[in-house]
């Protein structure tokens, strides 16, 4: 039964993300996914394809919103209201709870380190811990490239 379900479509040009997305330097669904489709006759079919246009739009808007939040944090760092730690936290889409879990510090401590004053008093070993969480060097943590394209550097492909 499963077999006549399947309808794998060849990768055609129309299915590829358009220029708008390629320009953004990250393709929003580079891998094709398997979807279930439903037609008016009540048949279900499997379809292997990229996300459809409307959906790609929404995914892009989701990431735009994330980028915007990072932009706001960046402004606050420039104004001296937040520490560079906040930039990396927002960039990796973490929240205080998650960062506390990964780093092993208490939430209260993490909040303290998010202020420029608390951050400046961090010991080298603690800086090391944070750098490890974000996969960066201590040097990068202390002097972040605030204009870097907001995206994820989670590990490298083997």
């Amino acid at each position: 039964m499963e077999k006549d379900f399947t309808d794998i479509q060849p990768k055609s040009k129309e299915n590829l993300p358009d220029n708008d997305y390629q320009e953004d330097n990250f393709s929003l669904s580079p891998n094709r996914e398997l979807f279930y489709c439903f037609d008016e006759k009540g048949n279900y079919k499997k379809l292997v394809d990229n996300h459809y246009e409307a959906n790609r739009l929404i995914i892009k808007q989701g990431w735009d919103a994330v980028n915007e939040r990072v932009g706001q944090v960046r402004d606050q760092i420039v104004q001296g209201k937040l520490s560079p730690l906040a930039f990396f936290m927002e960039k990796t889409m973490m929240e205080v709870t998650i960062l506390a879990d990964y780093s092993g510090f208490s939430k209260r401590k993490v909040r303290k380190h998010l202020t420029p004053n608390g951050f400046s008093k961090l010991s080298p070993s603690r800086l090391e811990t944070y750098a490890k969480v974000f996969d960066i060097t201590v040097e990068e943590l202390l002097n972040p490239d605030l204009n870097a394209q907001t995206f994820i550097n989670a590990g490298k492909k083997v």
Partner: protein
Amino acid sequence: MITDYKHNYSSHCETGVTSGLLRHKGIDISEPMAMGIGSGIFFTYLPFIKAQDAPMVSFRTAPTRVFKLTTQRLGVKTAVLKKFENQLDAMDSLDRNIKNGIPTGCQVGCYHLTYLPPPMHVHYNFHNVVVFGKEDGLYHVAEPVFEETQILSYEDLLRVRFAKGMFEPKGKMYFVESVTQNPDMKKAIFAGIKTSVKNMVKDPVPLIGVRGMRKLSKHMRNWPNKLPAKNAAFNLIQLIRTVEEFGTGGAAFRYLYGAFLKEAGELLKNDELLKLSFDMGEAGNLWRDLSIRGGRFVKNRGDDNYNTLADIVLECSVREEKIFRALDKIVK
């Protein structure tokens, strides 16, 4: 050692893993079937849990629940290991399994999963993969939502198995121990539907099932009044992404569940199930409508507003209530 696990390309991670592990043992259960028997269809709206300030909406049950229920109902003996003293123990027991030729499902977090494309690196710990081999210190991973199998290093696998955040996997792993051939499908399917009916229309908590949808619809109407425009739009974006993006097979699992009803109807020669599979597909179409129109609205196109979008959610709840009430009568 690499086991002869056959990669099962699927649209949803957990049903895909369940169906793959069962097929490996000779029980031919398709992905929609695993969805139905494992009662995978669900809805919950939790306005008090926030991820990046957007309220949480979930269309799936707790991790490994589908696997547990499906196998239980098919009379399959399984093991779910979830409490590990330390991280090395978790990796050791995985190694032991692979040495014994047992493909093993693991709950993992998405964020540090290196082979995923960048946009999929999110702090989402409900993902499931099958680890089916180890060679030269590298693990072979059957990623259900990818066409090809992938490779992970020891450190990377350890990292994702102990990802942090909401619902930490804590190294949870599960596998099939022994199976009984030719299980009673009718019993299993009816048991699956019964639990889904309970989840969708009979749960006393007003945030779960169709009542949750109504609550969401009600709150949606208030978003533009209560929140700054940007936050309201972001809430909507996150809702639509939950409906379409996170491995749902399209339209928040409704198509997948419809496919299950169709397959079950054909198997049991039950015309009513076939009819309901059609209704479920139409409910799926409505959810798809929400994504398309919502997407246009966020982009300032079309003439929708939060009210009309909330109407769609309300309509979904009405239709699904009808479907599950009808299913309730069938399985009684």
